[in-house]
């Protein structure tokens, strides 16, 4: 069952599970992290420059629309990261690979952060555009529920002392969440259309200036790189915390490479 340890112990040749061992993944993640952060900084700088200085002022929304260069990538990442987290959690549960579960735990805080960012920037955008910080719109409500799902995952893992039990329990919860997300999304949408409270529509004019789109894509890529970089950085901390008594971490420490 414990393929992670087997693959390292029985063969020194890299195979499918080569990097599923914390010992092999830890240095790899360490090498990759700075690259992702550097890419995030460069892409983010270009994206923000285009977003703030090159992209034209919106005809109807004025300058306030420029927050979408943060808002839309954050909202995309918040949803996508939940899927990635559930994917790694499922792999960890099925294959019993510790590294996958650690990856899921490392992604969760970034996902929650992106959800908060999407909600906050959205309400800051809503104030000048709709005249209110919050409406019970289907998308806003679903995003809020997504935040609850992230917080539930984090709270469950935080409450369990045994890391392996925390991994598996979190995985079950993440998978139950993934099945429920479409159901919740469509129920909220139907609930909203039935209530007809807010006539505010989030769907804006489809025509978007090419520079706006470019800025948004650059920012989305920057958010990707940032998320990968932070997840890798965080997973290294989790590995160290769990493997603090392992031989290889002591060796790294003795060599001064930590």
């Amino acid at each position, binding site marked *: 069952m414990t393929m992670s340890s087997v693959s390292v112990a029985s063969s020194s040749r890299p195979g499918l599970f080569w990097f599923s061992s914390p010992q092999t993944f830890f240095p790899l993640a360490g090498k990759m992290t700075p690259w992702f952060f550097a890419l995030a900084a460069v892409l983010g700088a270009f994206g923000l420059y285009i977003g703030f200085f090159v992209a034209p002022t919106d005809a109807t929304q004025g300058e306030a629309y420029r927050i979408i260069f943060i808002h839309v990538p954050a909202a995309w990442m918040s949803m996508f990261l939940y899927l990635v987290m559930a994917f790694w959690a499922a792999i960890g549960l099925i294959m019993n690979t510790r590294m996958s579960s650690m990856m899921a735990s490392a992604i969760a805080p970034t996902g929650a952060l992106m959800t908060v960012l999407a909600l906050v920037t959205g309400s800051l955008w809503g104030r000048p555009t709709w005249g209110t910080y919050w409406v019970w719109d289907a998308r806003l409500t679903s995003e809020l529920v997504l935040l*609850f799902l992230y917080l539930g995952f984090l709270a*469950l893992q935080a*409450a369990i002392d045994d890391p392996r*039990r925390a991994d598996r329990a979190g995985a*079950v919860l993440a998978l139950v969440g993934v099945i*429920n997300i479409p159901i919740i999304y469509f*129920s909220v949408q139907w*609930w909203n259309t039935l209530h007809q409270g807010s006539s505010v529509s989030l769907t804006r004019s489809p025509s978007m200036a090419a520079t706006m789109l470019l800025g948004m894509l650059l920012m989305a890529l920057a958010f990707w790189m940032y998320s990968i970089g932070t997840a890798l950085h965080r997973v290294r901390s989790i590995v160290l915390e769990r493997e603090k008594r392992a031989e290889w971490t002591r060796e790294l420490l003795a060599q001064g490479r930590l």
Partner: protein
Amino acid sequence: MLSVFLQVIRRDLLLAMRQKSDVLNTLFFFVVVVTMVPLGIGPEPALLRDIAAGVVWVAALLAAILSLPRLFANDYADGTLEQMLLSAEPLSLIVLGKAAAHWLTTGLPLTIMAVAFGVVFDLDVKATTVLVVSLALGTPVLSLIGSIGAALTLGLRGGGVLTSLLVLPLYIPVLIFGAGSVGAATSGLGVTAYFLLLGAFALSAAVLTPWAVAIALRISVE
């Protein structure tokens, strides 16, 4: 197979009968929460009529959450749960039996008591009927999905609050269509679609959740 299912229900009902206070406290909680709302909002009948279904449904959600720990906690404490895990019978079937017993001791009494709330909140006969039917269809989902949360948080510190954090977001669809059906009935729209959806939730939950609960129990007890 069926005999195991029925035996588990029989046993849990017997245990509930022997410890009536657990069951009664949940129902009492339900009544108290619903009573607090008019005291907080004001006694205008028109306003109360509008919010009645939502209030009863939210209170039912909270009451269901509050009663979840007793699903597995006692069996876990006295070792019965380990015997269930070791049993040759399918664990998911045993879990389904336990969820059914949980519904019989919480969801069903809540549904019956909702009749009284229909009267208190001045709902007409049709709206009260819809409220009761929606609760009858929706509360099994509360027991089933809730059992996942109860299994995951088994034996943890602050399990009760944690369970509600995990489970309440998953209750949203049931709440929307449960309370929504009464709103549709009072505004003269058809309620069939709501009942069909609630029934679909209940059936899919009955098929899928026992499996997830069985996995969660093995993780928690291991």
